[in-house]
């Protein structure tokens, strides 16, 4: 169905694609495997008409093909499900499907389109209600809306770009079923991913990219993870993290039946209870949107709990401000560097004192004391190796990894008793990720208690001394890592298991 030959594309001096060949026969699922920066997204942008290739040919359904725009690509029979959905949250499913679709006509016919949506939904097992507002739908369902859009526009070749990144394990199963049905109907699918397990499970053929070139091409059956990993990265992965076993100390943070309802009246946290002990990392896995950010914000004091209590070392901090919690020894690393944990326009020094600027020694009687800022900056920059032009350089001039070093330096540098870390390695390259994790380990070894929230199951399994799962605002009972069952965790993340913990045996 699709033959791409010798695709080359450079961005300035960076050669993103170097003579790539790709074949997708009808009725086959081809996996495109590669790390960030391997050239997968560029290749798909070329195919879908978002950018133009420098060289190479594409033949689609026997005809020469060169899309100049996504619109042309769609018209020719290609469909793309992006990683970040392009749906209008305020509109219904039907309206989103009708958007920009010539078939819908000048005068809209929502009932007819809704009928089409229902038929398609039944055929592929998508279970979509045409009348629902997209903004209210969970992530997995919104992805299905995108799939319906593509199918109804007559897509014969579907490109799925990292489709499982925000899905719970059962939702992933559901997606794979849909993909199989699409395949039965004779469509071709390109499945882009960096997850070896999934690629092995669903794909018929696998193409591996590294540094803009194809480094491996084979059928999925019989392939092993280490084969693929080697083709992907050039070496065997999973560098082990040195984790010394430690006996945790006494409980430092006690959370009892913590609940939180937001301004719209929705329950975000439901009676969360757990204890955090000195010298341990409690890692909580959960798909985005199940309450992790709410838990982090409420514990840190950025949002107010509607019920329940939190105490730190015997001190009741339930209704205490974030600043006071900080002073009591509770640090917080939020996930978003651009808008929350840093002010990119302000200097490194200012950012290092961002949460204490209004207290001595940084402020006295309303006046800022610059020397205190400089002293703290010099200390932290040296201690954590922050690479910047100087303490007065704007934070936005630093690399992502160094920006996160500022946040880590600020929150860990004060030797907190408790640290709440929400996806602290998000968006960082391997070197920076390593740095953050080493810092967390050092804090733990020194007796700090860490609550580590993440949507990456791998991270949670590696880092957590104890592991728990968040689903729909509820927290499972934490169990030690050794007793944790990976399958159980996956099912709990999707809510299929209602058992109260992730241990292999029932609680």
């Amino acid at each position, binding site marked *: 169905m699709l033959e791409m030959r010798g695709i080359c594309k450079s961005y300035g001096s960076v050669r993103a694609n170097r003579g790539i060949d790709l074949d997708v026969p009808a009725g086959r699922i081809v996996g495109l495997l590669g790390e960030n920066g391997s050239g997968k997204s560029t290749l798909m942008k070329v195919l879908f008409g978002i950018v133009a290739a420098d060289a190479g040919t594409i033949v689609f359904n026997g005809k020469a093909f060169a899309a100049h*725009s*996504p*619109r042309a690509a*769609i018209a020719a029979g290609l469909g793309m499900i*992006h990683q970040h959905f*392009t*749906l*209008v*949250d*305020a*509109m219904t499913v039907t*309206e*989103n499907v*009708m*958007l*920009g*679709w010539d078939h*819908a*006509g*000048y*005068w*809209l016919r929502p009932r007819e389109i809704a009928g089409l949506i229902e038929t398609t939904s039944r055929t592929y097992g998508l279970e979509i209600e045409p009348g629902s507002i997209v903004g209210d739908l969970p992530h997995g369902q919104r992805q299905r809306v995108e799939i319906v859009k593509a199918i109804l526009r007559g897509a014969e070749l579907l490109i799925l770009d990292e489709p499982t990144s925000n899905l719970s394990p059962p939702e992933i199963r559901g997606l794979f079923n849909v993909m199989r049905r699409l395949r039965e109907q004779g469509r071709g699918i390109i499945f882009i991913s960096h997850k070896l397990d999934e690629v092995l499970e669903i794909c018929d053929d696998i193409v591996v990219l590294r540094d803009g070139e194809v480094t491996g091409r084979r059928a999925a059956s019989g392939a092993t993870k280490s084969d693929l990993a080697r083709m992907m990265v050039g070496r065997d992965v999973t560098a082990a993290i040195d984790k010394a076993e430690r006996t945790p100390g006494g409980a430092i943070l006690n959370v009892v039946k913590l609940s939180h309802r937001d301004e719209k009246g929705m329950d975000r946290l439901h009676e969360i209870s757990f204890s955090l002990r000195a010298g341990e990392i409690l890692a909580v896995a959960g798909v985005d949107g199940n309450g992790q950010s709410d838990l982090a914000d409420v514990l840190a004091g950025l949002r107010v709990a509607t019920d329940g209590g939190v105490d730190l070392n015997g001190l009741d901090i339930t209704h205490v401000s974030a600043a006071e919690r900080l002073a009591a020894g509770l640090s917080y690393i939020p996930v978003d560097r651009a808008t929350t944990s840093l002010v990119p326009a302000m200097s490194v020094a200012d950012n290092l004192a961002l949460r204490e600027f209004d207290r001595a020694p940084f402020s006295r009687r309303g006046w800022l004391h610059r020397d205190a800022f400089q002293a703290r900056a010099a200390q932290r920059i040296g201690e954590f190796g922050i690479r910047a032009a100087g303490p007065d350089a704007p934070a936005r001039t630093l690399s992502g990894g160094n920006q996160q070093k500022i946040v880590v330096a600020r929150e860990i540098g004060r030797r907190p008793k408790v640290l709440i870390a929400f996806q602290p390695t998000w968006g960082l390259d391997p070197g920076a990720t390593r740095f953050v994790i080493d810092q967390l380990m050092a804090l733990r070894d020194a007796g700090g208690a860490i609550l580590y929230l993440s949507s990456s199951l791998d991270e949670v399994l590696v880092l957590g001394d104890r592991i728990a799962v968040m689903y729909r605002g509820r927290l499972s009972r934490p169990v030690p890592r050794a007793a944790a069952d990976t399958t159980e965790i996956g099912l709990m993340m999707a809510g299929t298991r209602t058992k109260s913990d992730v241990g292999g045996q029932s609680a």
Partner: protein
Amino acid sequence: MDSSCLIEITAATVRIGTPLLFAALGGLISERAGTFAVGIEGMMLAGAFGGAIAVLTTGSPSLGILIAAASGALVGAIVAIATARFRADQMVTGLAVNILALGLTSFLLRGLFGGRAPVIRLPTLGAWPIPYLSDIPVVGTILFRQPALVYIALLLTAAMTVFLAKMRTGLMLRAVGDGPEAAFAVGTDPVMVRIAAIVVGGALAGLGGAVLSLQEVGTFTDGMTNGRGFIALAAIIVGRWTPFGALFGCLLFGAVAALELRAYGWGLPVSSYVIQMLPYIVALALLAGIGRSARMPAAIGAAFTRH
């Protein structure tokens, strides 16, 4: 106050609310497509000026109306290019063109006529009673004995409702205002849609200005819109960004203004200036009453950037 007085006031409400309605509909198109319409005051003023000058020099009311729309559209084009193409801040750009329009109209009023503003006295557009319908008691006087532009405004309200809800282009316009990335993904350029919406909105606001200068007072004076554009903004919010809602809001403010005019004759113990304050106070009170529940288009205020 007897019934004929009440009918008269209601008819006046409709008439006075018409320039507001044009401006509000114009602002609505722009805001539904994702751009704050703070500049409709300037677009209205430009329309009032263009229309008056056109009629003054050519004597043709239809040409006057056309030029009024074009003048409003021109000011709209400035806002459109600055905000959609150059990503200037939407609110402050609107304020800037208000100042610009004020200065430009005052300047041209004198500059085009040898340095002195001409005396403009134009015949105001008269009522066009619709046969049969205008004879219906009560309703006939209120709705069907109005000047032509009033009918156009009311028809436009209905047309815009249909456009937004039922037509494909209307759906795309709403998508550009609520989720421009989605519109971009299906092949539309949100920047172009926003530019078109703001320019059309400007034309409508310009028509509102024409109603002022050609239908209401028959002249042009510096800054004659006097804040009506901002009242129209309030009407949009009060009407929850729907055309008929905006109509309701404009009628409300029109009623306040109509009562204001009558009130001088009633010898109330309240000073005329306090009466003049009423529209603004009422607008503020209404907005405060609605408070945070006002749901504006999701992507308004942010310039669209391609990734």
